[in-house]
């Protein structure tokens, strides 16, 4: 499945017209964003309705670095985006997750939602950040003297980053740390009696996911050429929830498929049914969530595969554990 998706991803620019390649690049970056939400919700069971805070703050951060400092080198702006996403997630996660008492799901979801709403309002009202209009005309990201403009090169660059992050997440969720996350998701109350410091575990994965969202946000800012308050707000935060629910939370490939299908449907429906496309898309999303709560991926992946194996008894693996 993963190889098939990757093959399609590699071949796509060869058959797409340029304007569609640009659209596909945007989708790849959103896939990266969806992976970050999937890690916190699908794997660790933390309901974050504010993932856009880290996406948008990194976008704004690199836009300011480019505008005010004239720095556009990808060797500086992408790590900066990562760091901004990580720092904001650490601050918000520290506040919401590291209290003396365990945070409830409602507290974390409303806290992150409020954070997203507040960030949107701050960006709209702050003149330095461009207010309602955001920051336009961000120069291209560069590597030495080469400017990375939108098009096939940017597409393959985004695909390479997505692949790297995907493999990193795959390594993470398949490790013993991934088993601890599965325990966190399945029964948080139980695992603290084994000795797991669950709040710390949550803060770690939340911050790591924030860094991925930050990387996505900084790529998005340079690809689109401008940043605007919606990137931080509730709409963007909800959109990423839908990507992951639609594709299948708790599977990395599900997050990618969900993003691609929703974005492709939106593109096609908005061209074909200009007036009613949001209604059609909304009904489709509802149908999937009602009849396939485990997402589209559950059509091809069993529940057992979705949960995963972290260790295998010798019967199944004669040469011992992985």
């Amino acid at each position, binding site marked *: 499945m993963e190889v098939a998706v990757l093959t399609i991803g590699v071949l796509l620019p060869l058959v797409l017209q340029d304007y569609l390649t640009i659209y596909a690049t945007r989708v790849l970056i959103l896939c990266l964003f969806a992976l970050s939400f999937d890690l916190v919700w699908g794997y660790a069971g933390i309901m974050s309705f504010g993932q856009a805070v880290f996406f948008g703050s990194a976008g704004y951060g690199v836009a300011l670095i480019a505008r005010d400092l004239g720095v556009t080198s990808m060797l500086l702006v992408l790590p900066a985006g990562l760091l901004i996403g990580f720092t904001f997630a650490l601050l918000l996660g520290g506040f919401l997750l590291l209290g003396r008492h365990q945070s409830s799901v409602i507290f974390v979801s409303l806290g992150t939602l409020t954070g997203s709403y507040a960030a949107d309002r701050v960006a709209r009202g702050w003149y330095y950040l461009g207010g309602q209009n955001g920051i336009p005309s961000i120069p291209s990201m560069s590597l030495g003297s080469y400017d990375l403009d939108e098009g096939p090169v940017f597409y393959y660059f985004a695909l390479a980053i997505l692949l790297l992050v995907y493999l990193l997440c795959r390594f993470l969720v398949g490790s*013993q740390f991934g*088993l601890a996350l*599965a325990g966190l998701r399945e029964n948080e109350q139980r695992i603290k009696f*084994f000795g797991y410091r669950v709040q710390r575990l949550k803060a770690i994965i939340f911050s790591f996911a924030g860094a991925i969202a930050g990387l996505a946000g900084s790529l998005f800012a340079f690809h689109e050429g401008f940043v605007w308050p919606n990137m931080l707000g509730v709409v963007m935060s909800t959109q990423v929830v839908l990507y992951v629910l639609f594709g299948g939370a708790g599977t990395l490939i599900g997050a990618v498929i969900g993003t691609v299908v929703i974005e492709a449907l939106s593109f096609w429906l908005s061209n074909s049914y200009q007036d009613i496309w949001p209604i059609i898309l909304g009904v489709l999303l509802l149908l999937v969530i009602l009849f396939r709560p485990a997402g589209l991926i559950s059509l091809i992946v069993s529940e057992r595969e979705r949960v995963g194996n972290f260790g295998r*008894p010798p019967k199944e693996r004669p040469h011992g554990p992985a």
Partner: protein
Amino acid sequence: MALLEARGLTKIFGKLTALNGAELSVEQNEFHGLIGPNGSGKSTLMKCIAGAEVATAGTVTFGGRDITQAPPAERARAGMSLKFQITSVLPALTLYDNVLLALQAQTSLPSLLFSRTRGVLHDRVMAMLEQFRLVDHAASPAAALSHGQQQWLEIAMALAPEPKLLLLDEPTGGMSLEERRVTGELLQPIKKRCSLVIVEHDLDFIRDICDRLTVLDQGSVLDCGSVRHIQSSPKVQEVYLRRA
């Protein structure tokens, strides 16, 4: 010095006093039973010891250290392990992963990230499953087990990290007579390795495996001593006859 000392433990929920100055002392390698009528405070006392509830008053010391306010994870890291009254295995995970999850809890973060202890812990996971007669189901999800087997899995998970003190809250609840007998057999060998505090309604079961008993009634200790002492205690007989 006793391994576990609970002194003057009181727990109040609103207007209900669930524990009223309860005392408990458990020595190294001792099997200690908590008995008493329904609502006498046995499970609340277990929860206050394990950290699931924080006592309103009183102290708990474990290995000479005051853990009255310590969160459950710190108590577990100090060597205390709990099996809940209601089975709480992780149903979607395989039996193997359930035990591995319990075993790796105190592994450092870098080791977890790079799965450094997976190979080392493999033999211990398999030994635990073997000991509790679950090895044939190692690759099955825990949800596929019978109720009795889930209870055994949970005891295996609680015992896997080699705790100094194992707290078992009604380990034979919902088991058949045969399963209870087997559970007794499974628990006997652990006496060499750790102490045990057990809450159980089956008095025959608890009499067979425990060295000492504490009887609770209305949140207070009614009597404490050897099994023979408790069996002949007029106070205990009166409480049980009163409830009969």
